């Protein structure tokens, strides 16, 4: 059954996209999902599935405005709701693919979402994504020296960023080393790079967000990391060695880059929460089926009240999480009512949502594994896969502790965290 949400805000486009994803997931993901773990490096199974969705079903152009051949998700009045739904529906099948799709859109949000649509860059980059070929973007934030420091914009204001951008005539010259972005390890065609025009300064005007096509000289992607799970999401190092891009590849310029980058945090939180929601829903579906088949004390597992109690806790957790995800999505849809997406308030709400929903999802997955015992850790039951995968979502974007600090700072007006 469908878990709670306000259905009045489901747009026709959203419904249509959700149906496409369902069609895609059943045909192109489920039959291969159990191969993903060993496929972490080669992506012999992952990439065709991803390509099908991005090129075959056309999602790759989704965020661009209609005039550039896109679906206009970014300038739709349902931007938040549609984003949440995409991540939820893909997350049911695989959170790794969800994040791969999400992170392709993510850097593009800086230039495709109203009211800040950068038509020049849209025109230029939409050509790249319009190719009938899998095209992927990545958001290069984290650096080796300081974990969550970069996402920690409100406290550090970019002070610790070491990737530098120097203007040389009409070109930016970029140098730096990034760790862990999704869609790296050779996948990305375009990077959105967080860098500084004045290293060591805590001033948002020096915070720069610059696009770097991956095929430029001086860009190097490392080998993908092996991880506990999340095999469909490749993460790696990226090095920028005197990479030169045109001046207009900086998203918006002084001050505005930092401002709209906060929206990247807000939407990242929404996407993270929504894809873990999808994972929870799939766990629910698996439990629904398996707890009806497995028998205990002469009855289906689910008919034992002790088991039913755990199943109920799981369902209730999903019910509440979904209501919260779509409430926040709606709030992002209507800046006129709820404030700008990049406002400190909306970012803090996003952090709070990600904090709780990711925690809930980790908890649900843990309970499901325990409940199924032997079968819980069996890879052919798919529950343990979600359990391993979703932990990553809880950890990224600065992890739990940064989430907590951002929430505390805003909700309690803390000044010294």
């Amino acid at each position, binding site marked *: 059954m469908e878990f709670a949400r306000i259905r009045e805000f489901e747009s026709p486009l959203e419904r249509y996209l959700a149906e496409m994803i369902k069609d895609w997931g059943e045909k192109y993901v489920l039959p291969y999902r159990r191969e993903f773990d060993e496929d972490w490096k080669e992506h012999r199974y992952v990439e065709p599935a991803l390509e099908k969705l991005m090129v075959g079903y056309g999602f790759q152009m989704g965020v661009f405005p209609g005039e550039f051949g896109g679906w206009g998700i970014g300038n739709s009045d349902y931007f938040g709701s549609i984003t949440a739904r995409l991540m939820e529906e893909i997350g049911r099948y695989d959170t790794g693919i969800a994040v791969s799709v999400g992170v392709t859109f993510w850097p593009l949000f800086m230039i495709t979402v109203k009211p800040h649509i950068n038509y020049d860059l849209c025109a230029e980059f939409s050509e790249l994504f319009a190719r009938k070929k899998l095209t992927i973007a990545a958001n290069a934030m984290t650096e080796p020296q300081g974990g*969550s420091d970069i996402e920690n914009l409100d406290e550090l204001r970019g002070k610790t960023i070491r990737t530098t951008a120097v203007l040389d005539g009409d070109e930016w010259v970029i140098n730096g080393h990034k760790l862990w972005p999704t869609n790296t390890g050779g996948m990305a065609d375009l990077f959105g790079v967080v860098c500084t025009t004045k290293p060591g300064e805590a001033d948002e005007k020096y915070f720069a967000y610059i696009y770097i096509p991956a095929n430029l000289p001086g860009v190097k992607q490392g080998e993908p990391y*092996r991880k506990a799970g999340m095999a469909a999401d490749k993460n790696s190092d990226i090095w920028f060695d005197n990479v030169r891009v045109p001046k207009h590849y900086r998203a918006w310029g002084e001050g505005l880059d930092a401002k709209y980058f906060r929206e990247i945090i807000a939407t990242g939180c929404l996407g993270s929460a929504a894809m873990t929601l999808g994972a929870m829903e799939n766990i629910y579906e698996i439990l629904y089926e398996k707890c009806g088949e497995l028998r*205990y004390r002469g009855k289906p597992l689910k008919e034992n009240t002790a088991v039913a109690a755990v199943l109920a806790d799981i369902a209730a957790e999903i019910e509440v999480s979904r209501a919260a995800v779509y409430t926040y999505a709606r709030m992002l849809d209507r800046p006129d009512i709820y404030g700008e997406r990049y406002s400190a308030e909306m970012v803090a709400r996003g952090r709070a949502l990600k904090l709780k929903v990711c925690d809930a999802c980790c908890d649900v997955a843990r309970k499901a594994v325990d409940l199924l015992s032997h079968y819980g850790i*069996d890879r052919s039951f798919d529950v343990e896969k979600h359990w391993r995968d979703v*932990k990553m979502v809880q*950890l990224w974007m600065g992890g739990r*502790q940064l989430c907590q600090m951002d929430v505390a700072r805003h909700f309690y007006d803390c000044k010294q965290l």
Partner: protein
Amino acid sequence: MRTTINPLAELKSDTAEMITKSIKEWAEKEVMPYRHEIDDNFEMAERAMKKLFVDIGMQKLLVPESAGGAGLSFEELPPILYHSFSEIGKADAGIGFVLSALVASSASAIGSEVFDFMVDKLSSGFCRVSIVPPQFGNDDFRGFELAKAVEKGNKIRIKFYGRPLNSGFDADLFVVFCNYDGVSLAVLDGEEVERGEIVKTAGLNASRNCDVRIKAEVEKSRIIKGDAWKRLEIYLNLCLSSLCVGSAVDSCRIVGDWAEKRFIRGKPLKDNTVDAEVLGEVAKEAIEASMAAQFLAKSMLEDRSDDEIHTLSAITALKCSGAAFNVADRAMELMASQGYAREGLLEKQWRDAKSIAALLNQQHSLLELSERFFASKLWER
């Protein structure tokens, strides 16, 4: 001192110290250098297991000296198991998991006719033992399905289809819970068991498992009756608890190192109170687990009923496996992606600890405690 405490006085023994020392050396030589890859490469795990089981002799702890074993007595065993499994847990919980079944089975067989049969196996080269516990199914064994045992002339016919606890694919011996004269253990030769394909699991990769089909006829002497199954569970719980203590301590060490090296807000992580609090929590959990496992080992040296120790052992195993998981899980939150990466080593402890916790079947254990302490009548027999 890092998340360890001195053991209770009664748990100190020269033999334990000696064995622990060998295990430490083994871990440093045979496991640590390969830890990143060991999960992907079963040969590595197998090589390490052989060294531990055969060369160091962990598979022969209970084998009489006359047959080349250590011939340990029940009085010597608990401290040695506590220390050695804690040490193994710091290196590879999967290997310890495989060993635990062997140790628990041998302990359950001492004094029975089948012990000699086991000793033969245990003293002639690398050996693995798989336990086939009751499992999801019907009502025979407190709500779990138990292998069927039917008398057939002088022999007993054992029938079962399902999944062992561990090492089903590799085991040389199977110890099967069956419904003979109440609950008994049947000891089967590996050749008497038909095996399916290896099951891929979340962790504990040194223990390759599969579904098995058993349709064997064995001599009555291969059956261990009475409370042997309880003894098996007691020793298994002690081994797993100690293993989890080691795992928790190792996770603490890993996150402790990270919290020292990693800077945030200009200070090492460990000097930020929000992170320090997580460190405090993991230390607390690890110590609590250690206290519980030691308590169990110590109790086994005392004059207590099997029933009481059985119950204590179940509680301790739940506590310790939960603690090992929580420690790794929270440590991972602190280490973020670094904890999640294979190189970080933490994620293996995390997967292994969760697997042990899941296999202990929390729900069912709690219901058993309820029977024990509150005389709940949950199962009709």
